[in-house]
């Protein structure tokens, strides 16, 4: 299966190898990693939660859509869930195609749409001990949920 959720470290070398093909002239790998600073706020770790059945269904939908829009040879999306430390890889998207422009565009489509459609959530653990679910467009961003 070319879309996965995992609680383990993402093996992006293996993922990259899995999309390589003699028919491809281009392989693009995107990694999302845990960032320390968001504006001035300092993160110590992230916790990811997912609605697994729907997340898999939506990622499969994205892979199928990408294959309709671009001449994709292989594509893989793997997203990690659970507790992640700074610098950890939270998501990997790998795409192969005959030419580089298609591989870049399909890869960008997959990660951009993943962030819109796939039911996965991150919780920021800030350095001051507070934690807060990230829900874009929600007013709760202005009144963080405090959990000590």
């Amino acid at each position, binding site marked *: 299966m070319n879309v996965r959720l995992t609680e383990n470290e993402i093996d992006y070398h293996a993922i990259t190898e899995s999309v390589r093909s003699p028919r491809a002239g281009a392989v693009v790998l995107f990694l*999302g990693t845990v960032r320390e600073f968001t504006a001035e706020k300092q993160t110590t770790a992230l916790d*990811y*939660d*997912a*609605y697994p*059945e*729907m*997340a898999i*269904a*939506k990622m499969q939908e994205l892979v199928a859509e990408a294959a309709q829009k671009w001449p994709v040879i292989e594509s893989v999306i793997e*997203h990690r869930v659970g507790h992640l430390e700074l610098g950890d890889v*939270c*998501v990997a998207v790998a795409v192969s195609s005959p030419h580089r422009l298609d591989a870049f565009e399909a890869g960008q489509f997959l*990660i951009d749409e*993943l*962030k*819109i*459609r*796939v*039911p*996965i*959530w*991150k*919780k920021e653990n800030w350095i001051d001990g507070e934690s807060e*679910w*990230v*829900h*874009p*467009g*929600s*007013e*709760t961003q202005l009144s963080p*949920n405090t*959990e000590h």
Partner: protein
Amino acid sequence: MNLRVRLFARARDLAGTSEAELDLDTGATVNDLLTELVARYPDLEGLRSTLMVAVNNNYARAETIVPENSEVACFPPVSGG
């Protein structure tokens, strides 16, 4: 009809449960479901305008009628990646 609604992320934290059991009239819409959910868990009120509902793994509109025996989930905007 009795319906189980799976909750995620901040919606789960505020409701204090990962699964809500609701009793809805046959023909109830997604909007009716949200009204019932917030009535049962008033702490969700602040999130109400942003809550999304998925029926059988697809996003559902407010006016969509909730089919019996469907898999339903409710959650705030996603933030993966």
